[in-house]
């Protein structure tokens, strides 16, 4: 299971302030703690909405350079703006491990997939197109198909696609958990070479004890062999629950990873 640390994201108010004020120390610390907590990649999102498009490009460059000097793991450039992705890729070079993300729109495919090809990097592809986020899995799978076609056009190996089936809150539409899982299942069946990722936290938006809801979704997605999760790695019990899911699915020989994580937790 690939864990993408979600914490450095400008849509979180506290993080937005840190980025706007260029408070580097707190952001460095957040990166280091995510690495120590077992993240495999750290997501970097600077969409504060506070400044100009030019500011965002500069913020991405600043933040990537800051974080890459502090951690050994790779970073994931996260932006809906191709120019910001580019700035991050240029600043990070070899230290970038993932692009987040491409939508299945004609324009976005034409802009982002060539970047993935140029840098030889995997890219998260959102299961949505010009029609926005569909509430049903069949429409989301059609969007995925457009990305697969785009891979051919732009010479991106399908293995480098991490499809995000999209996670929407169950608090506003109770069928959304099912749609996410059905889409995930469909991707695994129709595009078996592609990988999958869930940006989990959205499922529990507006509810109490969010971690429980997040875990429920993750465990069901683990049964469908989801490859990566965009999550908060700083919650140790939550990370242990993810390991428990891998163990139950037989992807943890002799339960080594699970047992070790319990020991490390008890040792603290």
């Amino acid at each position, binding site marked *: 299971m690939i864990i993408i640390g979600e914490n450095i994201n400008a849509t979180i108010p506290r993080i937005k302030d840190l980025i706007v004020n260029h408070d580097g120390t707190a952001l460095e610390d957040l990166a280091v703690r995510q690495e120590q907590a077992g993240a495999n990649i750290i997501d970097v999102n600077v969409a504060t909405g506070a400044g100009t498009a030019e500011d965002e490009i500069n913020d991405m460059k600043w933040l990537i350079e800051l974080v890459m000097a502090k951690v050994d793991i790779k970073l994931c450039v996260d932006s809906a703006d191709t120019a910001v992705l580019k700035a991050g890729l240029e600043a990070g070079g070899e230290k970038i491990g993932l692009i987040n993300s491409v939508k299945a729109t004609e324009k976005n495919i034409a802009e982002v997939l060539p970047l993935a090809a140029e840098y030889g990097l995997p890219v998260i592809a959102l299961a949505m197109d010009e029609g926005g986020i569909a509430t049903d899995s069949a429409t989301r799978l059609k969007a995925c198909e457009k990305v697969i076609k785009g891979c051919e056009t732009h010479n991106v190996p399908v293995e480098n696609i991490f499809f995000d089936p999209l996670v929407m809150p169950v608090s506003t539409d109770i069928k959304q958990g099912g749609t996410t899982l059905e889409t995930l299942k469909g991707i695994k069946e129709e595009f078996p070479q592609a990988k999958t990722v869930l940006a989990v936290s959205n499922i529990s938006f507006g509810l109490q004890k969010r971690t429980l809801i997040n875990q429920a979704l993750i465990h069901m997605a683990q049964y469908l062999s989801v490859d990566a999760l965009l999550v908060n790695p700083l919650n140790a019990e939550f990370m242990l629950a993810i390991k428990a899911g891998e163990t139950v699915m037989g992807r943890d*020989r*002799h*339960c*080594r*990873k699970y*047992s*070790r994580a319990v020991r490390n937790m008890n040792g603290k």
Partner: protein
Amino acid sequence: MDSTELINDIKTNVIQGRVTSDDEGFDEGFEGKPATVELVEKALADGTDIKTLIVEGLTGGMNIVGERFESGMYLIPDMLAAAEAVGQAMDILSPHLENAGVKSKGKFLIVTVKGDLHDIGKNIVSIMLKGSGFEIVDMGTDVPTDKIISAVETHKPDFLGMSALLTTTMREMPNVIEGLKTKGLRDNVKVLIGGAPTSPEFTEKIGADVHCADAFQAVDFTNANA
């Protein structure tokens, strides 16, 4: 690497429960390093003394695993991993044992009794005893009493191990012991029993030789009586 170092390395890998190089260990940071199978093959190629390898490397490692299991530091999968490493090492070594002057410590017949399909505990005991140098005859699960008795007659084992996980099936154990007595075989074989519902009191009541709460107690008893 001299042979002492190699044997120590094998012992470490048994304790870590690593069969081959891509296995994780109990502790972090072992992936990719040669493990039990690779090291035992190297020891064979180097002409390392097989007896020392078994006693100090495999049994020595397993003793520490036993201590760690008793202390609660190791859990069942950690013990199984180590037992698997020893089992594979013994498979590699077995064609060479006779030439090396290593004798079997004895023959052990093991069964889960009639009506009972549980085999996890029985299998752990099997693999641990095999690693300890005993010859194992494993008859599987749900073995009828008359078959157990005739197997004792034909195989002439030094030990008979019976497992039952149900209160209903453990009642088959005294029938086996009575059957052995009737055939005059009881004194030829030490009888070990185990499984969740069994107890030292039950053991005494039915006239078995020893109750084993876990695999290590079976290993200890057989070694003491080998």
